[in-house]
């Protein structure tokens, strides 16, 4: 894998993750992540829109003048969202109904416009498409992680309603993790979304710190080195 694509992978999935680092697109992230099925549905829809919009923006980047670039980007994103919406109506109508307003609202998801403006409008098609894929995956992964935490704590069950996405055979995927579980309603309610997103961000930062402290190499500034000092004399 070329190094710039590898760099894009790391950035999209971890170091510049749209949900955990850029904190973009929080509205659908918080509202839809009540269970895994919804989270995965919205994550895939966002991923699709992000790839399509990044490719299209990158294709037209040289013929759109700077002054009108934002309206053009928004139009491109909106058409991609409309396609997604129609596809979902055709193939998974129940999920379309469950996601409701948050599907059309993907248009206003600032993570998508952010990528169009910051990356796709300055790069050729292949890196732009790859960037869209990785950013979308990063967003979808956080959505699914948040969705599974909230579903597990809020209901004691995982993978309920997966038939909305994968058809009737997925009904058997529902697994009851805790029996006789007293539902922890806060996890499903809006405050839970904020609290658990905050905890995920904290966990990510903590892991970063841990890796940084592990990878620290003994540098020249350690014992025995000379110190540069401009005031006073060291005796």
């Amino acid at each position, binding site marked *: 894998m070329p190094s710039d694509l590898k760099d894009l992978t790391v950035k999209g999935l971890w170091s510049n993750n749209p949900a955990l680092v850029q904190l973009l697109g929080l509205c659908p992230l918080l509202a839809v992540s009540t269970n895994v099925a919804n989270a995965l549905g919205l994550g895939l829809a966002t991923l699709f829109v992000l790839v399509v919009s990044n490719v299209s923006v990158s294709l037209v980047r040289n013929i759109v003048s700077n002054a009108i670039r934002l309206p053009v980007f928004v139009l491109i994103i909106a058409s991609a969202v409309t396609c997604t919406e129609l596809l979902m109506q055709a193939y998974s109508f129940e999920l379309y109904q469950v996601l409701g307003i948050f599907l059309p609202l993907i248009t206003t998801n600032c993570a998508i416009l952010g990528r169009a403006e910051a990356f796709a409008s300055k790069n050729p098609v292949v890196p732009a498409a790859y960037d869209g894929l990785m950013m979308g995956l990063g967003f979808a992964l956080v959505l699914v992680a948040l969705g599974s935490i909230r579903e597990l704590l809020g209901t004691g069950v995982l993978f309920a309603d997966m038939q909305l996405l994968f058809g009737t055979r997925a009904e058997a995927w529902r697994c009851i993790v805790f029996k006789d579980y007293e539902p*922890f309603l806060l996890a499903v309610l809006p405050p839970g979304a904020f609290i658990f997103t*905050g905890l995920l961000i904290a966990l990510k930062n903590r892991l970063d710190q841990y890796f940084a402290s592990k990878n620290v190499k003994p540098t020249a500034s350690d014992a025995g080195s000379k110190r540069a000092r401009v005031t006073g004399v060291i005796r």
Partner: protein
Amino acid sequence: MMLQQVSAPHLRAGQSTEEIMLRVLLALVPGIIAMAHFFGAGVFTNIIGACIAAVLCESLCLRLRDRPLLLYLKDYSAVVTAVLLALALPPYSPWWLITIGTVAAIALAKHVFGGLGSNPFNPAMVGYVVLLISFPVQMTQWTAPSSLAANPGVWDSVLAMIGSEAYDAVTMATPLDLLKQNDGFMVSALWQQYPQFGRFSGVGWEWINLAFLAGGVWLLQQKIFTWHAPVGMLAVLGLMSALFYDGGSSSSGGSPLFHWLSGATMLGAFFIVTDPVSGATSNLGRLIFGALVGLLVYCIRVWGSYPDAVAFAVLLMNFAAPFIDYYTQPKPYGYQARDADK
């Protein structure tokens, strides 16, 4: 002759955090005894469970934050939070309920924001609200006062705490519940109909509140806090209930005495609203803070959808405390008010 040389400051406040917290715990004792008298041994199992959970959770958080364990554990702040939370929970709560509440109070409300002194919200009330929102059924089942039904014994309360279903307790609606659900009865008829009502408010509740009042007045005399916040809260709560009492009709909100001596009023007024960290800081600010808490308590109790409201009122006003501080900043000595020149 040697003169002893001591650097400034020469005037010190005599009280350490540890001492203040111990006095607060001591002041809670009359209220705890009154509660145990009316609700049985479940009050003690609540307190013990919450204290154990709080100390464990505090140690874990301090460990994660690389802070010295003993130094922070022996200021007793975690224990005070635990006891306040335990008193707000219904007696005979199961261990998992107590633990979730305590973890929310200590880890989420206190350590996430930087530990004691940095928390914008009252930890005990955050724990209580997390539980009230998450487990409404368990959080609204109060056992009947001992004069109306026999309380479970000590063994039964231990069983209740480990989550066993094998104990019996009679639960009854609290007086605040009854008044809220009242439709069509005059207040005096309501009083005759339900045995839960006592002389001024609920059977038992009036004594519990008086006991907390006594503890609070002792703390006031010890100068642990100033009179502003509790007086502000009780005054406005009384004023509001006097205004909307309308002689005890069927749509009445209850008399001032009823509101003063019901639910968590006195516990809130003297032990929650007076929190020096999450409240306003100047004396005028404290008065405003307390008054608005009192206003919110009355509004939520009478027109809101929850029977008691101290926790919600305190948390809402904690949001507003920095704003109150901004407008009630005391003038430094020697400065003149800008308007005085005109």
